[in-house]
């Protein structure tokens, strides 16, 4: 068994490396491939062909795969009669076209191989479990990537995946506070706004600032930060405001936090639109031209890291203290847990991730405007948290994707006036979608009072434990 795992693991890694190398080399040497197709070197004699080929290479350099493939098809179609498209060349072309899929299969095999080796080397149950989860996560990312390659970056499915991932982070960060610590905050939109603006303001290229801040002579900030730093800064600024609000409010016993944060979110929305701050916030005008993302992998990886950190927190001794506070403040305090300190910690961390989520949302939207961060945005996220289950990370994640898919995609047809033959379908018109959506949400809340997951988590143990309970019948 052990030898089998060793050889299996090593074999998988070798195959993975081969796949990765072949697909990467096909990707990296598009120019060489095009030259090989053009064996008689006619391209230099044919300006039209040269222009078409350059277009392919240019889009390839831009890392815009959709465009590259389109340009490549056009190139082959227009000038195919002058090119050698048989034999190994055809294979090479296929390798280029399927490159992303081949390399993602490579990554997946690599992960499985590494996980196998990890389990033989350590042999601990915890390592085996971690390896399984790691493979699962890699599989998820590979799926996202493949879906994106097949469906296209701007397809509805991929749009839902992007927005769903960002909302997953926003919901989990809210759940950390409302669901896990039992503190009720209604300021999510305000902290997202701070994150979105911080990110946007610091990543607009200097040369674009003149146009973006056209009413404020290019604005005050005259530099551009790297994306990752700007995202972290977005979280930090949101966290700083949370700390300040928490100082007075979290010392009070009851639910002043909800009122204070709701008020804060409204005030901050007005402040960011205030003309006097225009050189920094661009007043009530849009912020645009900041760095955004193309692929859904970016939000998936960023959100994945954040949620992983939150899960690690929840299962740490601090997370246990948060849950103790939620369950019984008096008992938690009697067990030596410093209430203001831990409440502030939970609040600040939750708002840090709300800020990061705001930054990601800005990237997704490509523009930011303070007036969009209304309280209804907070309620939307609160609804996702409730639907998914207070105190369940996986519930929040699942509910986010379902919520975004339903509201942005599956129910779209309800907004379109539809005529079948001569029959005009009643009720279908702009706005009906929201009516149906609200009814569905109400039904779900009525029938699943504790949300989809309650306070349980989706995990490998869940299936095992379910089995055990059925057999033992202890908790029945």
């Amino acid at each position: 068994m052990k030898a089998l795992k060793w050889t299996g693991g090593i074999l998988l890694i070798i195959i993975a490396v081969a796949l990765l190398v072949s697909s990467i080399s096909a990707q990296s040497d598009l120019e060489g491939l095009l030259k090989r197709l053009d064996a008689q070197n006619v391209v230099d004699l044919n300006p039209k062909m040269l222009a078409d080929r350059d277009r392919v290479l240019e889009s390839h350099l831009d890392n815009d795969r959709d465009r590259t493939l389109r340009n490549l098809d056009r190139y082959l179609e227009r000038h195919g009669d002058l090119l050698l498209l048989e034999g190994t060349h055809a294979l090479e072309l296929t390798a280029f076209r399927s490159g992303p899929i081949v390399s993602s299969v490579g990554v997946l095999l690599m992960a499985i191989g590494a996980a196998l080796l990890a389990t033989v080397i350590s042999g601990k149950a915890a390592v085996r479990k971690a390896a399984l989860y790691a493979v699962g996560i890699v599989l998820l990312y590979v799926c996202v990537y493949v879906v994106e390659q097949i469906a296209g970056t701007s397809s509805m499915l991929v749009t839902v995946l992007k927005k769903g991932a960002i909302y997953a982070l926003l919901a989990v960060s809210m759940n950390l506070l409302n669901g896990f610590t039992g503190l009720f905050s209604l300021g999510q939109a305000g902290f997202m706004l701070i994150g979105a603006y911080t990110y946007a303001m610091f990543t607009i290229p200097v040369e674009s600032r003149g146009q973006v801040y056209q009413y404020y002579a290019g604005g005050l900030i005259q530099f551009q930060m790297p994306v990752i730093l700007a995202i972290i800064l977005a979280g930090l600024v949101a966290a700083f405001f949370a700390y300040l609000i928490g100082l007075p409010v979290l010392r009070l016993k009851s639910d002043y936090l909800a009122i204070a944060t709701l008020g804060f979110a409204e005030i901050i929305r007005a402040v960011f639109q205030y003309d006097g701050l225009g050189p920094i916030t661009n007043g009530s005008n849009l912020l645009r031209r900041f760095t955004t993302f193309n692929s859904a992998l970016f939000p998936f990886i960023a959100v994945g890291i954040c949620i992983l950190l939150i899960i690690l927190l929840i299962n740490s001794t601090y997370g246990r203290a948060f849950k103790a506070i939620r369950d019984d403040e008096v008992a938690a305090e009697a067990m030596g847990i410093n209430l203001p300190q831990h409440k502030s910690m939970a609040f600040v961390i939750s708002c840090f991730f709300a800020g990061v989520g705001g930054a990601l949302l800005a990237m997704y939207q490509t523009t930011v405007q303070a007036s969009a961060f209304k309280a209804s945005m907070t309620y939307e996220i609160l609804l996702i948290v409730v639907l998914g289950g207070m105190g369940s990370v996986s519930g929040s994640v699942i509910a986010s994707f379902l919520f975004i898919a339903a509201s942005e995609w599956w129910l779209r047809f309800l907004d379109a006036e539809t005529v079948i033959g001569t029959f005009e379908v009643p009720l279908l018109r702009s706005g009906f979608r929201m009516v149906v959506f609200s009814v569905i949400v109400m039904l779900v809340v009525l029938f699943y009072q504790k949300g989809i997951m309650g306070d349980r988590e989706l995990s490998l143990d869940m299936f095992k434990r379910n089995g055990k309970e059925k057999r033992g019948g202890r908790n029945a």
Partner: protein
Amino acid sequence: MPDHVLELKNLTMQFGGVVAVNDLSMNIDKGEIVALIGPNGAGKTTAFNCVTGVYAPTNGQVLFGGKVIVSNHPSGKMAKMYLGADKDKFHQVAAPSPDKITRMGIARTFQNIRLFKTQTVFDNVLIATHLHRTSNLFTAVLRLNSSEEKSMREKAMHLLDIVGLADAKDEKATSLPYGKQRRLEIARALATDPTLLLLDEPAAGMNPQETDDLSEFIVELRNRFDLTIFLIEHHMALVMDISDRIYVIDFGKLIASGLPQEVRDDPEVITAYLGVDED
């Protein structure tokens, strides 16, 4: 003579016009098991709450190991409303929050059981080891504290073993029968490493067998953990059995104190309890 482990000086707690604890002075020495008894509503739990920082007393002091940890005197509106004695005796004001008092080494259980209801039996005890952590947020999240985490878990498991709940460790705390929930509360309190343990009616809701076991168990705990125990209990057999000394209060006021047999025969105590069912 060494300092008392716990000393109350003229402790008074007034809620509006009700004086729940009235000029209560008492002391407990190291290793003693001392009981506080009295009819319903006598102010026993309120006295506990003053010691553990849940309430700041209206007047008086609490000393722990000879050091003043809680101190107050009537001030502001209360200065006019105050119905108790020794109004001008104390000048110091100290009202640490309950978590600070727990960290000093005073742990407690609750009369109306207060377990962390969504957590397992094991996690209930584990949470109470949090106060002695050396990890900070970052080391805890990044799992750089695995040795500490391991020792926390071992300690929680060890305590569950001692109170006899090791088998139930993965069950939800609130799914346990009453008697076991009380034992779990004791395990949880012990996890904070106390030197003084306050038990508020630990036998309430227990059947006679469990109550018998409990008296032995409390004595065993005292010996094993080198504890001093301060106990509120209505169950007279248990109190008489294990207490070194007893304080009796009625309407917040101390009416008798001394060895169990002295207190039992005290006429004032008998009057206070007349018509009150002992069990």
